[in-house]
């Protein structure tokens, strides 16, 4: 059984994963995706792999490479469908809503004028986010009409086409922190709270992480959120709303975890590596079967 790990930047997480694969005796090959020329009609060297774990920092590279690799019949971790759902906040909102997973209210508009109506439907303050993006980039809180008009006009005038999707979310008055639950193979393995004086609580924006207990409610919500997206591995971000209780805010298909191993005492990299190896093993046994038969086999094995 062989696994490849695609990446664009070898960060601490990718090094930890390589070490974890090696520690559990799994043959893994790191592949800098930027140096690869794919032939979508011929898998060539890729035929040796039973699974590919994607760790590309660039969503564009992830989507294209995983699309091609799945076209070869290679099992990707995460699957393309899950990446498409997790990487787009609108797609995530729809998936969570369809699965009856509690999530903040959202409105979507196509220009600044309807965007202002959307904000006023939710009430002030409201939050505007790009549908694709991480680390709190370009997330803005609109406290009143003046701020909303200014931000919406700037987005419409200066933003790229992708920023002209006006994804507006109700503001949740969280207690200075949000919660992240790491889910691997459908099982929550660890949780952290990310605290900050700023209303944006991404660790990339300076929030500090601390391990917290995985309560039954956190487990239940996280499992259902991940099931709604079909992800093998994901980090589920939750908000504690004083009125509505726990809400799932978003999911991350290529989670960062370097600061969460020590704080939780859980070797997240090893959990990921073991689960990837299990998937690869199952896929190695079923590669000659039809896609439908593979799905049945996976369902029976899981």
């Amino acid at each position, binding site marked *: 059984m062989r696994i490849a790990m695609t990446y664009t930047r070898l960060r601490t997480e990718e090094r930890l994963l390589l070490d974890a694969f090696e520690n559990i005796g799994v043959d893994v090959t790191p592949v*800098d995706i930027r140096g690869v020329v794919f032939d979508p009609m011929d898998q060539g060297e890729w035929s040796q792999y039973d699974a590919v774990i994607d760790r590309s920092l660039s969503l564009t590279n992830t989507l294209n490479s995983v699309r091609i690799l799945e076209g070869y019949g290679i099992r990707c971790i995460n699957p393309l469908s899950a990446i498409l759902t997790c990487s787009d906040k609108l797609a995530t909102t729809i998936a969570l809503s369809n699965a009856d997973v509690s999530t903040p209210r959202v409105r979507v508009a196509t220009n600044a004028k309807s965007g202002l109506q959307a904000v006023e439907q939710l009430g002030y303050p409201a939050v505007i986010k790009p549908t694709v993006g991480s680390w709190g980039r370009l997330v803005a809180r609109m406290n009143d009409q003046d701020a909303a008009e200014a931000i919406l006009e700037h987005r419409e005038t200066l933003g790229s086409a992708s920023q002209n999707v006006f994804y507006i979310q109700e503001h949740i008055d969280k207690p200075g922190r949000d919660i992240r639950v790491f889910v691997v193979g459908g099982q929550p393995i660890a949780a952290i709270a990310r605290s900050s004086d700023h209303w944006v609580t991404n660790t990339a924006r300076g929030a500090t992480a601390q391990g917290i207990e995985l309560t039954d409610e956190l487990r239940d919500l996280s499992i259902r959120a991940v099931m709604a997206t079909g992800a093998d591995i994901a980090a589920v971000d939750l908000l504690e709303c004083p009125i509505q209780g726990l809400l799932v805010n978003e999911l991350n298909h290529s989670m960062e975890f370097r600061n969460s191993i020590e704080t939780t005492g859980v070797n997240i990299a090893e959990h990921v590596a073991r689960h990837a190896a299990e998937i690869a093993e199952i896929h190695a046994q079923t590669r000659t079967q039809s896609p439908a038969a593979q799905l049945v086999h996976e369902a029976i094995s899981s």
Partner: protein
Amino acid sequence: MNIRGFSLSIVNFYNRLTGNHTQRNHIMTQATVTAACPECDASVGFNRAPLNGEIANCTDCSSELEVVNTAPITLELAPEVEEDWGE
């Protein structure tokens, strides 16, 4: 798999993909390897052979650097965050 075998499989795979055979067996021959920081020319050390795309920080000038070649190890300033980067 031992570290040397692991690393050589990486190089072999890279060579097969790129047709580049000049880099073969050029890594993991010493415990610590260094390269020059492109910003301040200080020596940047790795406690094991880095891979392409690996990120390092220069302890002298604090630049974030990226390995762009492994034989010899060559560093460039790491690119700024791009619009579609994330987790």
